[in-house]
């Protein structure tokens, strides 16, 4: 039965089998070596990713203070309720939380990360306590604090300070390299945007070990978020608020600052908006109502709105005429109440005329005929040159986003754009700050403040100091002398005396009798929208100016009225509360 042939063959097959086995063994060992030794590091990383979840904690933004260290913007903590899915069903947790808080939740809950939902976005302190007490019933439920922006001063500071909001897709695209992520807050306007990099703060993170069920096993690593810098502004909270209230229900602008440093004490734009609502998120309807409001509450008027300057521009004409030698202390121009030119009659604002007036009186009385005459003598090109020289039509370099410049019309422009030649009538209009000419309030503030300093032009700014997280000053802003306008001394004297006379005997008599000697100029700007805009801008004390100011009230009537009255109250407040010194 048992024969050698079969045995031989079977043995041979068993030998084959062991060889095959050996090959499999070697292949397996190679694969094993490859996986555990050659690729070990890669898989170690994978295994880390498996078990470790990183939660990034939003940075705490630096605060914004006024010059007297009053808070203008700060982060305050809010609490929200997070649920890590995995254990109890969401519906069950929802029921329990509703019972504990005694209020209804509103599903569906937004999923913040994989397996993580936000049950309640805003918890009161009492609710936080309730949740913490019932922690045993709520596995996977976490109270998480997160910072929100608080603007204690609200509307008066909305434009200057700005507001923060969730980063949008475009911003994220641009800033991803700087570590921004979805849901991050970012400055949208004002100081919040301008000094975003200082205010932003550093993110924290929490590295958590989880098991395959998503259950948290432990915290591996925690770095709290922190803020890097706070900023102190040159703005004066009380002055700003007072100024804002002074405008009442009128729209307008108030700028107050130190002409010798460029510091701004007040930068008011009205109408305004509630920065709180914007940074905490508003509905689309609310946003549309705000952004499409015809009064343009979102526009930061001092630097973003353009107006005809009206008689305020006469300061530019006067400067040009004085410097070009067209007028001086001795030249008087007769004003019969109008100027006839090429069969057209251009009226002075005073029907009866001013009679024979010198340049200083012309400034004081804002005599149109004088400036028509000087303007015609200067010609449009020189007018534009002098306007440029005084900083009209040029960005001031203020440390706020979105600054616009006004518009200086030239004959070339008119030819090119309107296909019309420049008529003497255009020059006449330009001479009294009307026609095509448009300026921003900040530009005119700069003109006036340059007169106050007799030609020293300081860059306007609202950042005063940068503090570190301990409150130590790490940077103090020093005045930047941008430009020195070299004019003859007599020119400065005439301009300032003229402006002093505005208050003493001229169009700004409303401000007469203030405890401090004031130099100013009124402006009444006709505009197509309705009643004239009312300008009033000047500085005090006129002999050694410490404060320059500009008031613009939209549709406020003539400059000698509403704007001047507002300025008077402003100066009175200043003298009473700031003791005639710049700053406290």
């Amino acid at each position: 039965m048992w024969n050698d042939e079969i045995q031989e063959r079977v043995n041979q097959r068993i030998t084959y089998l062991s060889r095959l086995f050996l090959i499999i063994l070697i292949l397996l060992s190679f694969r094993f070596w490859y996986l555990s030794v050659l690729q070990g590091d890669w898989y170690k990383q994978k295994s880390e990713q498996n078990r470790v979840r990183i939660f990034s904690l939003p940075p705490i933004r630096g605060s914004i203070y006024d010059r007297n260290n009053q808070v203008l913007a700060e982060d305050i903590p809010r609490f929200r309720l997070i649920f890590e899915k995995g254990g109890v069903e969401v519906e069950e947790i929802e029921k329990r939380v509703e019972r504990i808080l005694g209020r209804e939740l509103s599903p569906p809950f937004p999923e913040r990360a994989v397996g993580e939902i936000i049950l309640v976005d805003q918890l009161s302190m009492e609710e936080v306590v309730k949740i913490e007490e019932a922690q045993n019933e709520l596995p996977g439920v976490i109270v998480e604090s997160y910072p929100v922006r608080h603007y204690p001063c609200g509307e008066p500071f909305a434009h200057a300070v700005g507001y923060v909001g969730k980063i949008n897709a475009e911003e994220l695209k641009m800033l991803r390299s700087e570590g921004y992520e979805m849901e991050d807050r970012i400055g949208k306007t004002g100081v919040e945007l301008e000094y975003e990099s200082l205010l932003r703060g550093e993110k924290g993170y929490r590295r958590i070990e989880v098991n395959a069920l998503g259950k948290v096993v432990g915290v591996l690593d925690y770095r709290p978020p922190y803020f890097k810098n706070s900023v102190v502004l040159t703005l004066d909270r009380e002055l700003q608020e007072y100024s804002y209230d002074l405008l009442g229900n009128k729209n307008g602008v108030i700028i107050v600052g130190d002409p010798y440093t460029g510091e701004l004490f007040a930068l008011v734009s009205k109408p305004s908006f509630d920065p709180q609502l914007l940074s905490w998120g508003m509905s689309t309807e609310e946003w549309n109502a705000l952004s499409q409001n015809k009064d343009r509450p979102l526009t930061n008027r001092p630097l973003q709105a353009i107006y005809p300057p009206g008689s305020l521009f006469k300061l530019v004409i006067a400067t040009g005429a004085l410097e070009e030698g067209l007028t001086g202390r001795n030249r008087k121009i007769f004003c019969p109440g109008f100027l006839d030119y090429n069969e057209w009659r251009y009226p002075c604002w005073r029907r009866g005329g001013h009679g024979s007036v010198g340049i200083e009186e012309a400034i004081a009385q804002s005599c149109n005929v004088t400036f028509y005459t000087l303007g015609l003598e200067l010609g449009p090109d020189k007018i534009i040159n002098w306007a440029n020289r005084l900083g009209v039509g040029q960005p001031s370099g203020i440390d706020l986003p979105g600054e616009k410049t006004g518009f200086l019309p030239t004959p070339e422009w008119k030819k090119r754009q309107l296909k019309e030649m420049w008529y003497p009538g255009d020059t006449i209009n330009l001479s009294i700050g009307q026609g095509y000419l448009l300026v921003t309030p900040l530009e005119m503030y700069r003109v006036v403040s340059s007169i106050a300093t007799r030609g020293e032009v300081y860059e306007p700014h609202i950042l005063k100091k940068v503090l570190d997280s301990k409150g130590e000053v790490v940077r103090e802003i020093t005045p930047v002398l941008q430009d020195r306008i070299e004019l003859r001394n007599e020119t400065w004297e005439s301009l300032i005396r003229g402006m002093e006379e505005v208050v003493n005997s001229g169009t700004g008599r409303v401000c007469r009798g203030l405890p401090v000697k004031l130099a100013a100029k009124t402006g009444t700007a006709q505009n197509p929208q309705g009643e004239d805009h009312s300008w009033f801008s000047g500085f005090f004390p006129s002999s050694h100016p410490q404060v320059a100011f500009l008031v613009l009230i939209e549709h406020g009537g003539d400059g000698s009225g509403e704007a001047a009255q507002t300025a008077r109250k402003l100066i009175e407040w200043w003298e009473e509360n700031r003791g005639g010194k710049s700053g406290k």
Partner: protein
Amino acid sequence: MENKVEDKAMVLVLIALSLIGVLAVYSVDPLRGEGWGESLFSRQIIWNLIGWVAFLFFSQIDYYQLVKRGWLWYFLMVLSLGAVLIFGEGDETGSRRWLFSQSVQPSEGAKVALALFLAHYFSEQRESFDFWPLLIKSGILSFIPLVLIFEEPDLGSSLVLLVIWLGALFVCGFSAKKWAVIGGIGGGLLPLSWVFLEDYQKDRLLSFIDPGRDPLGSGYHILQSQIAIGAGGFTGQGWLSGTQSQLYFLPARHTDFIFASWCEQLGFLGGMVIIFLLGLLSYLFLVVALHSPNLEGKILASLLGISLIFQWTVNIGINLGVMPVTGIALPFISYGGSSLVVNLASAGLVYNISKSGGKESWKLWI
């Protein structure tokens, strides 16, 4: 009679494997802290004890007498597998694999029973080796238990039976021409067999081809197992350390993927110890087959060797991500009583063959 070197070696290797099995189960035992009766490793110890009794028992019984009763084992096998399909109890995967309140898994026993039966069947017809009728008859007889197991469903075990049958054809010297025909038919039927696969089995096969296909679903096992082994590196993350297995990322970490858990803790070195021991044991099985003085012993030892080799290389291949997940346990190491007892029993059989045809063994009483 004096024991041969390979017999001593076999016993030593088996002892080492048993110990490693208990340690490996201990290291991933989620109920480690629950006390003696509750924990998985304590049960593994008890099954080891039972398994060693089985080893001693079968090493002393004349295997020749067992082979002679090949048909008896065959009918018992088919009967119990049929019973599983009728009375069987499901486990957590939804397959019916158990009898007697989840204590006995007949598909494990079937692996030895079929080997015994085929050893008998082929050695009875040694004159018909390499003839078609024997091939076809043995094929039909093997496919009956195979299909019954496949129906449970237990793809892994039915593949083991298939390999045992193919192994029998191979060992008994079926010619290359017939292998080509079988290969051809098998290859032709392969697409057809797709129809019979359960959805989850198809998923596993597809995931094997492309583990990234569904990393949280069916590709999960493959990926997590490779991560565990890779993260273990050369020396491992340390005993009872390793986040893949300890934090449950690795599925079936005490059964089918126990090798990966072991390697995460003890690295390439630790894994090679298991591969070395199982390799040595497999080699010893084949040596016994080679040295067996009779055909019954040769066939039986080779079939048990083939079954062993297939199971452990496929299991480790799955763990290493080079073979599709088919649900095959790692012999001697994976948690599970039936498999352990059956494996030790078959080692006992081989040990008995080694002792020169069991001439000094006890006579069978059946």
